[in-house]
């Protein structure tokens, strides 16, 4: 019998994530920049993943789209919000978690989930770039660094206090700290902590998590933020190699149910 594929696509503001899910076993994941056309990013991603896995297009039996660009994907069978998809995907990656912390390129959210990944409650911040991937990018640039260098640089450093959460003001503050001769590592640790504090406040509004949190979205690749979150929340904050694709995984799981 040929393998039936369920496809999940998460079109984020920065990256598009495509996931293939088979009836049993592994998932295949592909991530690429969204660029200016969500539709083209998604289609190119599917082609790339088909090539990589050797499956044919006819094996795709259901497609679910999510993320801010989901409406542009008219070829999808269904669209589901990134909130529902993230819940499903996170529970799949880290069984037993009761909280999802997602920090993407331009927004952040926290979800309370049950062990099937069903969302019980959520909060979203999409009003400003504060504390998102975009925020880290701007700060890294101000420090003359690449985002990928941030985590290592901050390891073991005593964080300096960054008082502003606004991207514009923080940039000025960071430049000021540099001028005062504060070590870059301490500044980066301070930035991580300020993001974590903001997320912890959002978590606090949903009520205390009990078991463990899954950390997803692009910023989950940053171990510095993860360490700060663990300290503030007092529970394990787990990432996964596929953390960034949690939304697309959730979409693929929902697609699979449609087959």
């Amino acid at each position: 019998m040929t393998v039936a594929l369920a496809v999940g696509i998460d079109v984020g503001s920065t990256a598009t994530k495509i996931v293939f899910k088979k009836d049993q076993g592994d998932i295949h994941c592909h991530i690429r920049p969204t660029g200016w056309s969500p539709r083209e990013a998604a289609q190119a991603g599917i082609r790339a993943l088909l090539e990589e896995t050797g499956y044919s297009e006819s094996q795709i039996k259901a497609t679910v789209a999510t993320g801010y660009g989901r409406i542009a994907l008219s070829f999808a069978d269904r669209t589901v919000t990134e909130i529902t998809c993230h819940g499903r995907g996170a529970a799949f990656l880290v069984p037993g978690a009761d909280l999802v912390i997602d920090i993407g390129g331009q927004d952040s959210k926290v979800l309370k989930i049950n062990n099937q990944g069903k969302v019980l409650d959520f909060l979203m911040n999409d009003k400003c770039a504060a504390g998102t991937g975009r925020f880290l990018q701007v700060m890294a640039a101000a420090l003359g660094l690449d985002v990928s260098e941030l985590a290592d640089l901050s390891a073991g450093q005593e964080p300096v206090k960054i008082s502003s959460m606004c991207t514009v003001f923080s940039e000025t503050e960071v430049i000021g700290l540099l001028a005062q001769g504060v070590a870059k590592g301490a500044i980066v640790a301070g930035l991580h902590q300020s993001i974590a504090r903001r997320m912890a406040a959002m978590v606090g509004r949903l009520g205390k998590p009990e078991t463990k949190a899954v950390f997803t979205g692009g910023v989950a690749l940053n171990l510095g933020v993860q360490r700060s979150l663990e300290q503030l929340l007092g529970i394990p904050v787990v990432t996964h190699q596929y953390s960034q694709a949690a939304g697309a995984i959730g979409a693929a799981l929902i697609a699979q149910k449609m087959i």
Partner: protein
Amino acid sequence: MEGNMLANFDSIREQNMIALKEVKEKGAKVVGFYCTYGPQELAVAAGAICVGLCGTKEDPIPAAEQDLPRNLCPLIKSSYGFAVSDTCPFFHFSDLVIGETTCDGKKKMFELMAKIKPTYVMQLPQTQEGEASLALMYAEMKKVKEEMEKHLGVTITDEAIGEAIALLNEERRTLKEFFDLNQAKPAVITGMDLLKVSWQLGFHANRKERTVLLRRLIDDLKAKAAEGYHVGDESTPRILLTGTPTGLGSEKVIRLVEECGGLVVSIENCTGYKTLNQYIDENDPRDKLLLLAERYLKIPCSVMTPNTGRLELLERMIKEFQVDGVIDLTWQACHTYNIESTTVGQLVKDKLGLPFLHLETDYSQSDVETLRVRINAFLEMIQE
């Protein structure tokens, strides 16, 4: 609802604008109200026409922001903007405006409004409990009566107040009966239609005609329902909307819920169900102004502290309307509703175990897409 059933309601506001101009020219008096704490019975007893002036549209907000801060509740800015730009005919025709010291924003706004129009600002107590609160409310009913007599050039008799009480009791009972039709599952009225009917009705100059129109609509709907008519189906998420007032122009959350496949089966705010089950005993022989004071003090609005009546009402409505989830709408910078949302959330989530969504927004369309994601996700929480 099928178009023709609501046809009578679509243009009440427009039609009454013209009617109002005509009767004004013949000497009729008009009293404008901003809030459900305003005792409309007294205006009716004075033979005046009552009009609702609460601003529900974004258009006049820039005009208001010349005098008012930007980070103020849009309802206050819209209300003031209409007044200061003279773009609301109902305000224009009002001989007297009744304001209330509800929240800080409103009471200070009325100071500015009083420069444009004769305005009486009722002093409201901060709490519904205790003798002093009732005494203040009673004293204010007297003051409102005096002000109306002065500005409208009439004497308000006890007998006329008694008749007005009966008339408004009947109107509220009928409107409640209309809302209650939606206790049926599947429902028979969309949230947009609930809003349209209750909001448009408030502009009808002929008070008796309001109840007649509603009665006809209720009868039509009942007949249709008996033939199997309904909106949505058994599985459509039934949403209760609570929080700050909504009207046509500020209906975006209701519209989004229904665009995303849910149904707002009832509306617990003061433009909806909040004040519909507080009646005055028409046979109570006591001072009519005291009866009014008692009734108006019972309104469960967040400007009162504590405001346990709202929680009781919500709990009852959640059961009676077989609600699947509650959305609490707060206009930006409304502190009383914003803070009370924590308590409402605890009731809905912790005590009743239902999904709860708090939304904070204004009258603009700039956040429609981000609201849509939240509302969509909320409906998915209920359905999946």
